[in-house]
């Protein structure tokens, strides 16, 4: 088991190195660079920069060097000092730009995941144990809607509904007075008040998908011989459900938990823009458009780390829970 974990962590490092290379390469694929974007902006504002100024900036930012050198200049301080580089556009270190947004992204994602499981597991269990009942049909119907409705549309609907009904538009994660305030109890409570709408919007598709997966898994497991065996032993129905079929049906849920995290993070970018959430998604989009290389690469890298860590955690959890997985992996 320990060697399995160590091996998985080893693979994780390799995957992260590959991710960093691919990210950096793709960000630099579009023609032009930040300098050109910058020049266009200055021109539009009516104060064009001279060619000498632009050349100076190009050299200062190291954009005249080959891509591999630029990559090297980014990755080495990142690995050795945790230095994510400097934002051309914002004129400040990338980390100070990302730090707050990263925590908020993680909070929104994790709370969304908790929401997904807290809602979908009981609903799926109800649906499977009451197959073909009115409740089951209602859940399936809502599930299809949940999967089909684009979440930004739902976000807009909730915004409009909330504005009409309560006279407030629940955008952002904080009220204006707490927006840039340091962390305090009041700011935390304010965050809690603002969380439900984004969490519901971000988590809806995942909830619907999880209900469907878990329901069909449970229905499959109910047919299995070991369930009949347990029933024939005199195990009461409630205990039987949770000890046997539920336990086995959780496997695919656990193994996909790692994928749910990146899905929530990337899927929430549009929602974050619609709802004005200060998460990484909108910053990343802006950085890519402006070709603000280090911000874009660092954001992608952090999302990559979240994803890979999530997958590794769910793999390890699966191996802990399922003896068959342990056996297969040890060979």
């Amino acid at each position, binding site marked *: 088991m320990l060697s399995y974990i160590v091996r998985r962590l080893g693979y994780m490092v390799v995957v992260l190195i590959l991710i960093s290379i691919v990210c950096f390469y793709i960000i630099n694929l579009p023609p032009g660079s930040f300098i050109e974007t910058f020049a266009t902006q200055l021109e539009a504002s009516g104060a064009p920069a001279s060619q000498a100024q632009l050349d100076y900036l190009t050299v200062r930012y190291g954009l005249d060097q080959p891509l591999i050198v630029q990559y090297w200049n980014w990755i080495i301080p990142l690995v050795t000092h945790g230095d994510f580089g400097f934002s051309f556009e914002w004129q400040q270190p990338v980390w100070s730009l990302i730090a707050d947004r990263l925590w908020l992204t993680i909070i929104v994602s994790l709370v969304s995941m908790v929401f997904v499981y807290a809602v979908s597991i009981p609903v799926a269990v109800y649906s499977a144990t009451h197959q073909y009942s009115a409740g089951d049909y209602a859940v399936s119907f809502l599930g299809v809607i949940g999967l089909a409705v684009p979440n930004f549309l739902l976000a807009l609907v909730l915004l409009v509904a909330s504005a009409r009904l309560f006279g407030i538009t629940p955008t952002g994660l904080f009220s204006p007075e707490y927006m840039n305030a340091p962390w305090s109890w009041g700011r935390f409570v304010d965050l809690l008040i603002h969380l439900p709408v984004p969490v519901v919007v971000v988590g809806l598709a995942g909830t619907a998908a999880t209900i469907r997966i878990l329901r069909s898994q449970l229905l499959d497991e109910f047919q299995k011989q070991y369930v009949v065996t347990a029933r024939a032993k005199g*195990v009461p129905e409630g205990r039987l459900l949770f000890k046997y079929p539920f*336990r086995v049906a959780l496997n695919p849920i656990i193994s996909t938990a790692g994928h749910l995290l990146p899905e929530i993070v990337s899927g929430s970018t549009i929602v974050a823009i619609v709802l004005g959430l200060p998460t990484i998604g909108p910053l990343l989009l802006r950085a890519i458009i402006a070709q603000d290389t280090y911000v874009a690469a660092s954001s992608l890298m952090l999302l990559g780390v979240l994803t890979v860590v999530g997958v590794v955690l769910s793999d390890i959890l699966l191996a802990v829970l399922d003896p*068959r997985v342990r056996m297969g992996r040890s060979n």
Partner: protein
Amino acid sequence: MDELGDRTMDMTDSASTNQPLLEVKDLRVVLPLLEGNLVAADGVSFAIRPGRTLGLVGESGCGKTITAQSILKIAPRKARTDGRILLHYADRPATDIIGLGADDPELLKIRGGECAMIFQEPMTSFSPVHTIGNQLMETILLHRTRHRREAHDLAVAMLAKVGIPAPAETLKKYPHHLSGGMRQRAMIAMALASQPRLLIADEPTTALDVTVQAQVLRLMKDLQHDLGMAILYISHDLGVIARMADEVAVMYMGSIVEQAAVRDLLRTPMHPYTRGLMASVPRIGKKSGEPLQSIKGNVPVPINKPRACGFFPRCPVAIEGVCDRVVPPLTPVAAGHSAACFRYSEVVAAAGLDQGGANVH
């Protein structure tokens, strides 16, 4: 092992009273399907005496398994069950299992406690994610003792009794660590751990290879001798039934068509279906090249079953105009030997038909 010995004494006592342990009376199980109502069991009646073995034999789909499942109320949820299944006790009135609700504590006591069951597929009968010990001790904790320590010791003793080497280590293993034969032994241990009065064995050796099959059959015989439980042994294999059973009931399309002591049935099979079954058993010593006999046709699916002898379309001696119009009742045609075939005058009389109408032999 003293605990295991207690019940043996009771069993031999009650065996002498000759009161049946379990009586199935006019059991009818209907499965509503999209195509129509499938009559899986149609008026099945039999009794099992303490410490004895009743063999239930028939082709796939004849209703053996659903009959057995009905005894523990583990038939598919949508099955509609009528009739009575009486479990007799020495010290209190009999319980009608069919009348018990799904959550009745009495039913949970009967399941696994009074009547235990072992299944055809040892590979899939255990949960893959729980240890053998967890699943075996679950039975013991439900029916024997509340103390984990004691349950553990009983589990070890039980595994040893069914001939599993290193029982204490086996408790910690997962089902996929064991071979098929060992798994079926563990299954038997789990079923018998609660000292049931009745063991229902639903083709327990069908999925095993022949040498392992022989070991498992011998083990069950030995355990029956030691523990004194009655067995309802379900199989399609007359050879296995001949070896295991005291009495045999032959099922065809949801009904018992012949019932007798095993010796009588094998010596003088009376129903044409039983004869066909016996003729189709391969035998060593038969001339090679001689084709193996088979019963022509397939078992019809009993959906919207007509009122007639179920075997009529395949029967070599069917009587046109009688067998396809009336259901032959199961009637004693010799001492301790019942058959449901209009070839016997007793059956014709029991059905209330005119004797001349049927060509009696």
